[in-house]
């Protein structure tokens, strides 16, 4: 093993790798819902995709060779995506009212096609994924050698 494989760098690498795993799983999961199960994608879901999909590409670019600066580029995406997901979860929960809209071909964000165990919805999964990515990347930032 090379010297940087030990200690801080190794840990930071694995943390970013774990964040990528979450981002890649979330990306493929979103594609599965949309393209395979044909669950309609509401506007807020699109914004969350905009912040999740690039993570699946940017993070591996920072893994080979390991570049701790990847956190700097990826963390804002994950943080903003997370905020949108939390906002969406609150709309679904009815905490924030969605403005009345005329019926269109599109899907209202409040309507949830998929509900597992009575409370797991797609925006909740997205919020969890973003939160885990933010946590992993933050720790990676402090663990990596300056």
């Amino acid at each position: 093993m090379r010297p940087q494989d030990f200690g801080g760098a190794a840990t930071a690498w694995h943390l970013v790798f774990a964040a990528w795993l979450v981002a890649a799983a979330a990306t493929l999961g979103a594609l599965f819902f949309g393209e395979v199960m044909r669950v309609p994608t509401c506007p807020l879901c699109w914004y969350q995709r905009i912040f999740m999909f690039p993570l699946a590409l940017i993070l591996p670019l920072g893994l080979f060779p390991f570049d701790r600066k990847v956190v700097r580029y990826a963390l804002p995406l994950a943080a903003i995506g997370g905020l949108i997901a939390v906002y969406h979860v609150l709309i679904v929960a009815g905490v924030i009212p969605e403005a009345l809209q005329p019926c269109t071909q599109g899907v209202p964000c409040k309507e949830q096609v998929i509900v597992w165990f009575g409370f797991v919805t797609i925006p909740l999964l997205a919020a969890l994924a973003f939160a885990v990515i933010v946590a992993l990347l933050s720790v990676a930032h402090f663990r990596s050698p300056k």
Partner: protein
Amino acid sequence: MKRQVLFFAAAAVLLLVFAGGAVLYRGQQNQQAAQLAERNREHLLRVHSPFYGRADAPVTIVEFLDPACETCRAFYPAVKQMMAANPERIRLVLRYAPFHQGSDRVVAMLEAARRQGRFWPALEALLAAQADWVVHHQAQPERAWRHLEGLGLDLARLRAEMAAPEIARVIAQDLDDARALKVTKTPEFFVNGRPLPSFGYEQLKKLVEEALVASQR
């Protein structure tokens, strides 16, 4: 190098899970769709529906059609060609699925034209001129009228008969059957009661060919 192996192994596992899940899910959906069509056979064919070809043809294609739907227009010549290639062996039954706004009024025009024995010419004229009377995915029946001229139709009579309650009933029944068969997009095809495994011209052709072969036995 170990890290590269770890990364590519993880990527491969994720992609395999995705692909495997997709194949499983699609298979399950197709099976369910076939069962649904089987259970709802009575929703598939109604005596009121217009059809093209011999009534006793061995292969029946049921098409749920919206005259304002672009893909329906694109498929129409292909289906006609398929029928011409197998004369007297294929029957096309049309069911209405006027999902576009305003399209139900155009369907009523077609039904009124049918009372004058000019259904197919009217349908073909409207499909050919679709770009003119469908504006931003909304059917505009008043723009469709001029395309019915010159087809030998009594347009005054057609206008009067469009509002017939029987025609409204036919449209309501077709929409109801579409709902029962979970037809949400047009065109949707059923070949001798079997739905397409996935949407596409090749899939339709394959299903029709299979039905033709099966009918020869």
